[in-house]
Each structure stands twice: as C-alpha cells, then as structure tokens.
C-alpha cells in the first residue's frame, strides 16, 4: 500500500469508529429523556433507575465519541490539506455551527450526569432534552458537510479557484436533505435496536425482571417506529443518488450497461473487467421501478463513465446489499413487534422474539457502516464530486502507515476497554427478585 491508500484507510477507520459513538450520542439521550419523562409522569422508580443506568453508559460512550471526534477534526487537515485549503471557506460553516452544538451537548451532559441531586427534577430532565437536541443538531450539521462533498454547491469554479462563495447555499446543497433524514433516522434505529438487544439478552434468562422489561419496551418503541420510516427514507436516498451521482447508483446496483427496464441485482460477484455480475439474483425491471417508478425507465450504467471515474464496484455493491438486507430484517422485527403487541397488548417477550432482537442489535450498526461505505467509496475517485480528485487532496507527508497503524491499535484498545466497562455496567443491573 502507498501513502495515499494509508491516508484513505486511516480516514475510513477513524470515521467508522467515530460513527458508532456518534450514532449512540444522537440516540441514547433521546432514550434517557423518554425514560426520565416516564419516571416524572408515573413515579415508577424503575424508570428512574433506567435513566440513571443508561446515563452511566452514556458517560463512557460520549467520552470516546468526543475524543474520536476531536481526532477527526484534525485529521481533515493532517490527511487532506489540499481539500481543506480549498473547501474550508465553503463548508467550514456547518462545522462551526456543529461546534456550538457540541458545546450545548457537552455542557448539558455535564449538568445531566452530575446534577441528579442538584436540580429540580424537571430541570434535570430538560437538560437531558438539550443534550439530545445538541446531539441531533451536531449530526445534522456535519452530515451537510459530507453532502456537499457529494453534491457540491454554493460556488463557481473559475480557473481552478472557487469564486462567488455562498456558504449557506453550500450547506443546503441538493444532497443534504436525504442524507440528513437518513442519518438521523439511522441513529435512532441503530441505538434503539442496540439497546433493545442488550436488554433482550438479559430477559432471556430473567423474563420477569421489571427493569429489563421497561428498558426493552422503551427501546423497542423508538426502534420500531423509526425502522419503517428508515426504509421510506432509503428509497428517497436512492432516487436522489440516481439523479445526482449516477455513477454511484450504477456501482450500488452493479449495473455495467445502461439499459431500459433495468433489473434489480442482489448479491453476486461483480467483475469490472468482464463487466458482468455472476451468481446474482435478478428481479426483472426492479431497478427501473424503484428509481423511476416505471418498469421501462432508462437507467444509466457505468459504461457512460470513463473507467478512471468508476468507484470500486464490489465494495459499493456489497455494502449496499448489506445495508438493505439489514434494513429488511429490522423492518421485519418491527412488524413482528407491532403484531405481537397488538395481539397480546403487552411487551412481546416470546423467546424466539427476544432472540431475533438480540440478533438485530449489531445489524443496525452494521447498516450504518455499510451505508457510509456506499456513500464514501461510491464517491471515489472524487473527494469533491466532479471537482477535485481525492489524490489531489492528500497530504505530501510520507510514512502515513505509522499513524494508521498507531491509531488503529489505539482504537482497538479503546473499543475493548469500552466493551468490558459496559459489560460490567450491565452485569451490575438489578436482579428481578429484588425489584418485584
């Protein structure tokens, strides 16, 4: 591997790490606030216990989110100075606004975690709501910056220099809407199923535990409401990508040849040399239907682009299938939960259902990672789509392998430490007997 590849890998690794904690940073405060609101309304101490335990997990996860996010803001310059020199003035705006959202989040997180007995209950709850708002807003802002890389707007290029800069128009670029909606929902889906999975895991052995039952109920409610919306939003994303980045869509669908009535290709082994995808499942006219709502519609394939502008088709296609597959499984879980709840009017706790939810936990996060692979690898070879190639942006610094391996080792160590700390928190949860 050369320095350029190491730089890309380091960026990818840092982002893939951060996004887990970022998604939790968006979703978990919402869950905590709901639990505390439930306590304020019902005075059922189980909900207070829940809010407190979740907030202890949040303290650990947020710290890791904060340090890994700090690393990212520096890495933009350490790895991609050419990009930042050109783009900073155009998309610095959302990052600056994000800074204020971080302040809101960090300040009220401090208040929330350490202020349990220093504030009137409603004010404490309200600071939790502000943490949630800060998290949602920081996600929205940073995602508009990414959307701009995919659909640059708000400037005109004259002789390789950006002029007529309009940072607001850059923020409200054509890709912002679908990315923001899809990412925010993704955070709720992944955190919801992730938390539900943990409590479902413990409920399998201790079915009557009121603590885990309450937790599962709240987490499932959030997850099962967002998952169906996420599918709708994913469809919206696909159709926008088809319009804005046809090469990315073609790679997602492994569509080498432009055609009318294009089939939907699932799985298989895309081979860019022979321009064929072997062993794939094909649904005739599926892609045309999905993209244009017309079975005969024309869909642009990769053949319309010079090879030098193709992204890595295998990674993009497989990641896309992984995301959609996970999305379908999560949708099935949501429907099953709704149906069971409607039949029995109580928390679904059949053993098969709990097992299905445990499996759903990692899938939400897997879908997030896969979705970002689609977005980011699908954008290649561009760092600013159609304007600047990634290799023009990379740092001249040699020896990037060293920080790549260094940060990878550091992050592995962090991940392992977080895992063991959280496990201890969960194992310390109250047993069923004591509460019932």
């Amino acid at each position, binding site marked *: 591997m050369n320095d350029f590849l190491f730089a890309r890998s380091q960026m990818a690794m840092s982002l893939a790490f951060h996004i887990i904690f970022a998604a939790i940073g968006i979703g978990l405060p919402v869950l905590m606030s709901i639990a505390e609101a439930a306590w304020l309304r019902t005075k059922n*101490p189980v909900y*207070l*216990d829940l809010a*407190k*335990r979740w907030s*202890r997990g949040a303290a*650990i996860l*947020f*710290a*890791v989110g*904060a*340090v890994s996010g*700090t*690393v990212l*803001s*520096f890495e933009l*310059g*350490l790895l991609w*100075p*050419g990009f*930042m*020199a*050109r*783009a*900073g*003035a155009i998309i*610095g*705006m959302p*990052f*600056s*606004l994000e*800074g*204020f959202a*971080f*302040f809101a989040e*960090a*300040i009220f*997180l*401090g*208040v929330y*975690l*350490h*202020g349990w*007995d*220093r*504030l009137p209950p409603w004010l404490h709850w309200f600071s939790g709501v502000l943490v949630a708002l800060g998290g949602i807003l920081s996600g929205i802002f940073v995602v508009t910056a990414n959307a701009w890389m995919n659909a640059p707007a708000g400037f005109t290029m004259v002789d390789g220099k950006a002029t007529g*800069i309009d*940072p607001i128009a850059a923020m409200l670029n054509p890709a912002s809407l679908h990315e923001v909606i899809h990412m925010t929902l993704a955070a709720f889906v992944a955190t919801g199923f992730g938390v539900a999975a943990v409590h479902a895991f413990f409920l399998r052995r201790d079915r009557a535990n009121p603590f885990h039952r309450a937790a599962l109920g709240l987490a499932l409610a959030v997850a099962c409401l967002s998952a169906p919306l996420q599918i709708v939003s994913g469809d919206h994303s696909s159709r926008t990508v088809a319009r804005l980045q046809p090469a990315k869509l073609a790679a997602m669908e492994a569509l080498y040849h432009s055609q009318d009535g294009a089939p939907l290709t699932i799985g298989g082994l895309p081979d860019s040399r022979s321009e064929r995808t072997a062993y794939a499942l094909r649904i005739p006219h599926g892609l045309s239907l999905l993209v244009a709502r017309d079975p005969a519609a024309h869909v642009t394939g990769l053949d319309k682009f010079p090879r030098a502008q193709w992204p890595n088709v295998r990674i993009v296609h497989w990641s896309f299938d992984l995301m959609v597959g996970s999305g379908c499984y999560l949708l099935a879980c949501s429907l099953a939960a709704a149906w069971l709840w409607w039949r029995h009017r109580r928390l679904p706790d059949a053993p098969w259902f709990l097992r299905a939810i445990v499996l759903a936990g990692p899938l939400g996060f897997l879908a997030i990672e896969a979705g970002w692979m689609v977005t980011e690898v699908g954008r290649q070879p561009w760092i600013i789509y159609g304007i600047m190639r990634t290799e023009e942006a990379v*740092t*001249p*610094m040699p020896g990037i392998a060293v*920080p790549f391996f*260094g940060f990878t080792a*550091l992050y592995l160590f*962090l991940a392992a*430490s977080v895992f063991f*700390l959280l496990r*201890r928190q969960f194992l*310390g949860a*109250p047993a069923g007997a004591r509460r019932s």
Partner: protein
Amino acid sequence: MTPALIVAVFMVAALIIYALMGGADFGGGMWDFLATGPRAVRQKEVIARAIGPIWEANHVWLILVVVLLFTGFPLAFAAIMTALNIPITLVLVGVILRGSTFIFRTYDRRTDVVQRRWSIVFGLSSFFTPFVEGITVGALATGQIRVSDGRLTSGFFSGWLTPFSFACGVFAVALFAFLAATYMTVETEDEPDLQEDFRRRAMWAGLILIPIALTAFLLARSGAPWIFAGLTRWWAPFLLGGTSCCALAALLTLWRRKFFLARVAAIGQVTLILCGWSLAQYPNFVTPDLTFANSAAPAVTLRLLIIALALGAVLLFPSLYFLFRLFKGSQPPVRQETSEGEQIERLTTAPDSP
C-alpha cells in the same frame, strides 16, 4: 477592523479560554499523578470531582479553535497541519489517552490495581498533551516554517524541533500545573488540610514558572526573532509589566492565603501571556509567510462566521454560567433527594467498592 481580524480575535479568545479551562484540567491530571503525602487519596478525589462535570465542555474550546482556523483561515490550516503533522498527531494521541482514561477510571472497578493502571496513563498524558501543544504553538513563531504559493517548502521537521519550541512546551506544562493548583485552593475551601497541600503546590509551580519563562524569553531572541522583535514595540513594556505584576500578585496572595484573589491573578497572568504572544505574532499567522490577511477566507465566509459566533455566544455563555454555577459555587446547592433516588445513586456510583 477587518472581518479577518475579528475572527482572529475570536480565535485568540477561544484559545485563552481553552488555556484557562482545559489547561487547568491538564494541570489537574498532573497533580493527580503527583499526589503524595497522607492525603494523596483525598487529593485525587477532589481533583476528579472538580474536573468531572466540566472537562468535556472545556475540551470543546480546542475544537472551536480548530474549526475557526479551517473556516476562517483555510490556507493557514492546511499549511500548519502539513508542517506540524508530527507534533499534532502526538497531541491527538495525548487527547485520546487522557479523555478516555479519565472516564474509564471513573467508571471502572474501584480496586487499587485497576485504578492505578488508568491513573498512570491519565497522569502521563496530562503532562504529555500540553507539552506537545506548547511545542506546536511555539513552532508557529520560529519563522522556520516556510510557505510559498500555498506549498510548504520547509519540510516536516522544521520549527518544532527547536530549543525555543521545547521551552514553550515546558512552559505550558508548568503554567497549567500552576493554574490548576491555584484553582484547587478555591475548590477545597471546606478542607483546610487539602487547601494547604494545593497552596504549597501552587506556590512551587509559580516559582518554577519564573526561570522557565525567562529561558523561553531569552531563547526567543535567536529562536523566534520575529516575536522577539514584536516584544520591543511600544506596548510591550506595559504587557510584560502587567504579566509580572499578576505573577507576583498570585504568589503573594497565595502566600497570604487570599485564595480567591490568587485565582483572579493567575487568570490575569495567563490571559496577558497569551495576549502578548498574539500581539507579538501579529500580523503573522505562520511567521513570516502567512498573515491573517493573506490566508483568510473570502469576506462572505468571514462575515457569516462572525454572525454565527455572536449568536452562538449569546446561547453559550448563559449555559456555561449555569454549568459553573451549579458545580463551582463555594456552597453548591445540593437538593435533598428522597430515599429511592439516593438508594439508586449509591447503588450505581459504587458498583463493587470493596
């Protein structure tokens, strides 16, 4: 004032606040590492209590500085991140280790072995991070980082491997240690013994700071000639005088046990040092090739940024005031919680204390 200058002023302000708050958190980590004597455990506890609620918010000031840098001065950002790639990467390693080990320590087992393991990393990274930060900031002033046509021409080792920038690193460490110990004397009003411990530490750190500052100043003559020339302008004597007065006042008030005043003097000292440094640096950003003017973003961006900063400040400062009021008042208003809540609190804060 040009928009670029206004943004630069905001940046310096954010940097000063970062030094005053985040710097003190680093200092806290150093004193945690150096905790000795019969009250070592208590010292660690009050430090952890003082840092706990505020460190994440304090840390965001650094992020604000970086974000303002790349939005307002993208060319300077690109040049700095390229020329100082190595020390800045080391800063990041320090940031990661310090932030995570602090929180792991808080939430991990209370047994000695585990706690000591996290504490060592936390303490060492609390020294290491400000040291490398000082080196980085010092390097900008050396005049050895050269840029022409937006391209770095001086390589990846120039500027930061100099005696002057290392002196800046040592200075940052000593300054933050002094700051933290002075703050801690105010945080320990109700425990006179502990207060004495921190008073002694503050005075030692304050005394050690003087020769370090002098060394850095003398090294600047050859190591950072532009800055040194800056320090001979008309305002320099006032600024140096003011800084020395604050330093003396801090030591004196510590000695007389006027802790509140000592804190004010220490804050004044740090503020003046950083103001002096930025004035001496002006109008250069990366001395001597990148100035505020020639590395700035277009005026539209800067104007929007100023609006955002003004609006943000309106929301930010009341929230910060609330945070500090809540945890830093001399008599924090602890609400009497009824049985259930407290039971859970006890149950959750010390899961398996021996």
